[in-house]
């Protein structure tokens, strides 16, 4: 379905994606996991043919570099940074994308209904909340009912309730046989949606595993957000990784995935390394409470 072969993307001297290869079959749901700057977003953009890159990417045997337009017609994309024309109205925005995807206004109305945005067509995009914009992006991605959905941190702007709804929607899509590729910083999302996890670090693929392989005691995993003293984030991440924790730096503190009964461990590890933890919060509900679809489809597993 998707073949990524020796993809390398350089921005001048920085190698954002480094000789990365993988392939996936129809119905699979792949999570791209890694800290900020690991190359997840760049990889997604290379896969969509937005960024020129070395190596090759094919979607359903269509070479993205040679036939990008044809390949992209098979993919619905939800970006990390939601960039719509702020002055446009929601209805006009989705109609514009419906036109690009060669579907009619009725399909646009149905897509809006599916994400709960019906009745908001007259609102200007600038007046929408972050969550509504995220749902608009999802509606646009679903417009032409593409077989592949690519999502770059699809719940980053949503509250807990909105996040649950989006994950539920994506689960139903996966169960209908759609192929999903998504970048995420949230273990609960990966466990609920993913059948495979590609762990990336500094542009390299360092592990191709399953969510259960990455978090063996997933039913008890929670995410802690640690607020550290200025300038210690990078060193703290290194110390925690060395101690075997899954760590993400996401610009709003340092997120660590830990078993529910060992929440104090990261704080203790950092204290030993003389890194001050100013504050912390628990982000997730226990993963055992994740939606029913947390169990990956057996048939789709590699």
């Amino acid at each position: 379905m998707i073949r990524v072969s020796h993809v390398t993307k350089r921005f001048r001297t920085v190698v954002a994606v480094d000789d990365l290869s993988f392939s996936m079959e129809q119905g699979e749901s792949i999570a791209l996991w890694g800290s900020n700057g690991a190359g997840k977003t760049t990889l997604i953009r290379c896969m969509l043919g937005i960024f020129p890159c070395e190596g090759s990417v094919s979607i359903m045997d269509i070479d993205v570099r040679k036939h990008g337009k044809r390949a992209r017609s098979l993919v619905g994309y939800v970006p990390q940074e939601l960039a719509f024309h702020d002055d446009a109205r929601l209805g006009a925005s989705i109609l514009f994308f419906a036109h690009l995807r060669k579907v009619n206004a009725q399909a646009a109305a149905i897509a809006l209904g599916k994400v709960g945005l019906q009745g908001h067509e007259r609102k200007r995009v600038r007046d929408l909340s972050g969550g509504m914009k995220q749902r608009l992006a999802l509606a646009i991605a679903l417009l032409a009912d593409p077989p592949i959905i690519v999502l770059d941190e699809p719940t980053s702007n949503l509250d807990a309730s909105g996040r649950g709804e989006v994950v539920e929607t994506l689960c139903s899509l996966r169960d209908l046989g759609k192929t999903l590729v998504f970048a995420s910083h949230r273990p609960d999302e990966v466990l609920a949606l993913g059948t495979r996890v590609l762990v990336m670090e500094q542009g390299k693929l360092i592990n191709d595993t399953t969510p259960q392989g990455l978090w063996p005691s997933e039913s008890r995993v929670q995410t802690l957000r640690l607020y550290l003293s200025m300038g210690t984030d990078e060193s703290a991440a290194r110390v925690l990784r060395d101690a075997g924790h899954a760590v993400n730096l996401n610009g709003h503190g340092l997120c660590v995935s830990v078993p529910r009964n060992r929440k104090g461990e990261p704080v203790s590890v950092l204290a030993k390394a003389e890194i001050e933890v100013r504050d912390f919060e628990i982000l997730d509900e226990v993963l055992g409470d994740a939606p029913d679809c947390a169990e990956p489809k057996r048939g789709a597993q590699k």
Partner: protein
Amino acid sequence: MTTLGVDRKSNPLNSDSNPRSQGNAGAHLSCLGSVIGFARREFRDAISSRWFILYTVAFTVLAVAVSFMSLAGSGSHGFAGFSRTTAGLLNLIMLVVPLMALIAGVGTIAGERERGTLLYLLAQPISRTELLIGKYIGLAFALCCSMCIGFGLSAGVLAWRVGGVGLSAFAMLVLFTCGLALAMLSVGMLLSVMSRRSSVATGLGLFAWLILVFLSDLGLMAGTVLFKLRVQEVFAIGVLNPLQAFKMAVIVNMNASLDVLGPVGMYASRTFGSGLPWLLALVLGVWAIVPMVIAVLVFRKRGAV
């Protein structure tokens, strides 16, 4: 939000909508559809934007003012009002229209790139060429509409006061002004494609305007004196500037000769004769097409980065 019930029958994998099953005609129609989609949106965005309204109002007010002043200067009826107004408008157009078109052009791709909307657009099933051409057509249409409003009101004033004397020269002025706007829009889009930030693109656009409007004339004068250029060389260099080509084309249409421009004009009139307006129109056409072709090539290579 509801759980999705996606109809498997409508899956592109199972239907004729699979692009691999589309013929050439379908692909061309698909391209045309995308171009029209972008053109419509660009037109709508342009006519609702402040810069566009401001330029349209300014151009209209100035055009009508020039018309009134031309009539006041004539002192009586029966004077060739359209021809006199055409001459009066010429200098106004050479200042305002290139600025208007360049500023419109430089904001397109650089602005989208800066806002992050370009990445999202390029993730859709469209090609970079379709995006660029669609935007060009939409903006070109908006600019032509803007100028037609100004010219239309000006023509209305003149027709009311002096009748239709010199109307053909005025009509040619409108036509060549549209040609000039398309040429400058094309240059603006090239600058936009080459710029990462809209502020840089705007700076480049203003610099290009300054060169074309003022510095090229001064440079040509200085070059003529310094290098003792012959008339044919001065004409060849002068006509490379789209503004000069536009000016000569309008004067030719008013007077049927460029003798008013001195030896260079006389040389051009005698050498090219009745083909001169076509040559000048060709120069504007080349300026409207070549920068746009380069813009497409650069954009295809560079994309959203």
